[in-house]
Every structure is written in C-alpha cells, then in structure tokens.
C-alpha cells in the first residue's frame, strides 16, 4: 500500500479523508440547523468543526450505543453555545437520530441552545455559562488517574472563554497534579461576542501562560486536519504534563462572508446568504 511521505501509516488507514468529509457534513448540518432555528452561533460552529470532526472520527474512543461505558474517552464541550456543530457531530457519530437535529431549539426540543446531558446521550456535562468545562474535565482526569484507567479527557474552550478565571483555577490544579490524561483545546478564532479578543482583554502570550501553569503546549493550525489529528491522537507516552493545544482557527471558517467577522458570532444569514453559504460549504 502507498505510504504518505514521512508517515508510517498506510493510505488505507489514513483517517484524514474521513475527518474531512465529516467536517464538511458538520458545517453544512450546523448551518442548516442555525438557519432553520433562526438562532445559534454559526461563527463558532464553523471555527470548531474541524476540531470536533478530528476528535470524533479520528481520536476519541466511544460506543454510541453505550454512551456511559466506563472506558470511554471523555469530551467536554465547554464552549456550550456552539451546539450547531456539537449536535451535528454527536448525530454523525451515532449518539442519536439525525432527524432530531430538525428540532434544534424548537419548543420542548431535547436540543436546547446549550447541551443538557439529561436530554441527550453523548453529552457529559451541561455547559453554556463559560468557564465550566475545565474544572469538570479536571475532575474526570483525576478520577481516571485514581483508577489507573487509560481513558483520556478532552475539553474545548473558546479563546474569549479563557478570560473566565475558573479556567485558570482548573489549569493550576491540572498542572499541579500532572494530569497527562487531560487535553485542553483552545478554539483560538480571535473573536469573542463583541470584539476581537486581544482588543477586549488580551490573552497573549497565551502559550507561555499555559506553560507557566505546568502544561505542555502545542500551537497549531486548527484547520490543518493532519496536524490536528497528529497532535490529538498522539499517545500520552512519557508526557508528564497536561496538554494544551492552541488551535488557531478562523471564526466562520468555510463561509467567505462570515470569516473573521465579529457580527457572525450569533448572526443569522438571510435567504440569499444562506444559499451562498450552502454552496461554499458544498464545494
């Protein structure tokens, strides 16, 4: 079988084509959900789609028919407002029927604007208010370490979300405890709800901050699927520290008029924009 240069995997085992296909589906599905609901956070859905696709179709171990299996890897969607992408991912991964996505944010839907574990399999903890995922993920990682279990814990936060102090409380504890089974992925799209992150409350030097908290840091292109997969699927091995992946992304990625524009944090496309977006994502 053909080999990729510098890669020992065979092409047949290369997960990237599948991840790419799933990422495209997640983006298209999220866009349709947001447009149908006339509600949502499309900018962040698009920036995080490649991260979610990589995790669910190239990294995480789970069984959608047994969502609470003790051995499963844990994923915490701390940026809980990006349910368009998250629900699309869970449906794609088989946790529930895709038809349910049509009810997104509708009356009495199980698909609340922010995820609820009591409504949906595959959701580990209820998020929405920012800064909640990290402490919970730290608790999961401590439990796993305590039991000598080999499951890993992944948590995705937004970059604006890093302004919440609870991330740093949890980050300090994870560094102190050397929770190598914990990976934080920061969706670094550089925009928060109202403005650029760096103009609001600067995060830089972000990598240095996490290093100072006792973490190993990988600063990568969050839309380079091969790079994402390589960093996220690498075994813990000898690493003694938790891993922070700064995934540099573009808010609205894949839809030209949404890219890097703050108004698409929770902007809803009109009919014409919607058609254009569908076409661009389908290419």
């Amino acid at each position, binding site marked *: 079988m053909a080999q990729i240069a510098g890669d020992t995997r065979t092409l047949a085992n290369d997960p990237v084509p599948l991840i790419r296909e799933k990422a495209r589906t997640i983006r298209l599905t999220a866009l349709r959900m947001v447009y149908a609901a006339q509600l949502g956070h499309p900018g962040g859905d698009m920036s995080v789609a490649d991260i979610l696709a990589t995790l669910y179709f190239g990294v995480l171990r789970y069984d959608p028919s047994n969502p609470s299996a003790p051995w499963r890897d844990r994923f915490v969607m701390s940026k809980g407002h990006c349910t368009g992408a998250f629900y699309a991912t869970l449906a794609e991964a088989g946790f529930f029927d895709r038809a349910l996505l049509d009810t997104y944010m509708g009356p009495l839907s199980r698909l609340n604007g922010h995820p609820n574990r009591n409504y949906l399999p595959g959701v580990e903890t209820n998020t929405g208010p920012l800064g909640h995922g990290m402490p*919970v993920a*730290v*608790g999961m990682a401590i439990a796993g370490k305590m039991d000598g279990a080999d499951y890993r814990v992944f948590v995705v936060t937004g970059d604006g979300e890093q302004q919440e102090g609870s991330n740093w*409380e949890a980050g300090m504890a994870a560094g102190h405890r050397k929770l190598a089974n914990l990976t934080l992925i920061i969706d670094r799209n550089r925009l928060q709800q109202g403005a650029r992150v760096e103009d609001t409350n600067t995060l830089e030097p972000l990598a240095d901050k996490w290093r100072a908290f006792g973490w190993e840091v990988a600063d990568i292109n969050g839309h380079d699927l091969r790079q994402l997969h390589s960093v996220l699927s690498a075994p813990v091995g000898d690493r003694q520290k938790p891993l922070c992946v700064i995934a540099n992304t573009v808010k609205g990625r894949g839809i030209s008029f949404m890219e890097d524009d703050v108004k698409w944090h929770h902007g809803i496309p009109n009919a014409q924009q919607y058609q254009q977006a569908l076409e661009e994502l389908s290419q």
Partner: protein
Amino acid sequence: MSANAASAADLFDCRDAFARSLEALAEADQRIVTVVNDSLGSSKLNGFNKRWPERTINVGIAEQDMVGVGAGLANGGKIPFVSAASCFLTARAMEQIKADIAYSNVNVKLVGQSSGIAYGELGPTHHSIEDMAWLRLLPNLTLIVPSDPWETAEAVKAAAALDGPVFLRISRAPVPRLERRQDARFEIGKAEVLRAGNDVALIANGTMVTRALEAAQLLAQEGISARVINMSTVAPLDAEAVRSAAATGAVVTIEEGSVRGGLGGAVAEVIATSHPCRMRIMGFPGFLPTGSVDFLFEHFGLTPAGIAASARDLLGRGTA
C-alpha cells in the same frame, strides 16, 4: 431534655459526626472521595486525608474549580463529598452548583461546613445565612440540615446512598444529642415530630431544634401545648407535615439562617398556598452586627425564651 442542663461535655460539634460517619462509609466504599479548598481542618477531614490521601483532592483556594472537579469525579464513578465553609462553597461557586451539579443532576454531595453564623465575630462575609435561600431554588438538589450528631451521621449515610446531588448543611455551634426513640430512623424528606402539641407548631432545623424543644417546655408551663417538628430536609419538603402543623392554627419556624427564603420561606409557601394560618419566621434579618455566636443568637431572639415569646405573641397570649 434540656440544652441548658447540658454541660459543655454534653455538647457536640456536628462536624465531628460528619467526619466519623464519612470515614466509616469510606472504609466500605472505595468510590467515596473528598474534595476540599484548603479546608481539611475546618471540615474535620484531616483524619480522612491521613487514611486515604489518594482519595482526598485538595484543589487549594479555588471554589469554582472545587465544585466542577466534584462533578467530574462523579462522571468518573466516584461519590465525591465536596466540603468547604458554607459561605464560600455556596456563594463563590453558585453557578457551578447550578449548572455542573443541580442542572447536570450528578451524584455529588456538597457539604456546607460551619454554616449559619458559626463564624460569629468574623462577620457577614463569613456568615452563611443566605445559603438555604440560594440553594432552595435549584431543582434536583436535596437539602438537609441535621440537628445533632446522630442525625448528622445518618444524613451523611443517606446522602451517600442517594444517587443524586445533595447539600448537607453542617453546624459548628455546639448542640446536645437529642433524645429520640430507640427505633428512630432518619429518612430524607420526612419531618420528625419530636414533641406532640396542638396549640402551636414550632418547625425548626439544625441548631435551632434543641432550642425549640426547650421553648416548648417553657410554653407548657403556661398551658400552651407546642408541637416541635424537626424539618431537617428542606428540599424536598415534607409538605404533609407542614399542613398538619398548620392545622394547629399557628406555626413558628426557627432557623440559623436568613428569615427570607430558607426554611421559613419553604414552610410559608406551603401554608400560603394550601393551608393558611398565622405564622412567624424566626432567623436573622440580614447582614449582622459584630458579636459572638451566643451573642447573636441572644440578640436576635433565637433562644428558648425568644422562641416562646414569639409563639406566645402569635397566639395573642401576651407576655408570660
């Protein structure tokens, strides 16, 4: 029984009963772990830590992290007892308690230590008289305010056995061991009638139960028959016990907490909507002046004499 007659040796800090009960459970159940915010000593968990250091998670002075870590440990199959001074646990981490614990509906036990006015002279930042009002608004969360060492130990066991979130409000102000029937058993959501009576019902919990019993003795000397109810579970509330108490025609609630939104509020909601009767709510009015625990109890009438006076007044009997 009488707390006045009890010597200091007969008075107990309920935190000791909490720690003993938890250690006994932890011996038999590996899933039990503790999470603290540098609060090992103030939670009386140094013994637990010594026996099971690997099951003691001290996150440092970081309450938001502490509560979230509790939720994560529950996700990993543990039964975490998250123990900290009630003032910091509830106020500082309120959103974590709401979203990560109650709304997520996870198997975490929150332990509010030194609740109420236990920190006396340290002042309103350290008093936790608001905790019950805040927490009572959260669905799924069971709220228990034990009255003495026996009930504290039993409540710890019951909380561990319940698959769901629980808040245990543990007192530090010394209380006597209440006299109970041999076959007394603690049940979450079940009020305990400690003294029969039909003129007025005194509904109390925590440190106020023994005082309510003494108040009933004082009232008995005047020919007033007071029922005394220990309402240790505030959520879910034993509404039937409240309706039955309201049938006496007069209800006084007494708690080591704010007069707004706590036990008194919970009882008032039942009385106002299903069995109106005369009612008084005894507790603390708001930010309190400086003073010792005993001074503050005395100053705000949370004494046997003060409770009796309130009941008497409610019944229109004037002063004794």
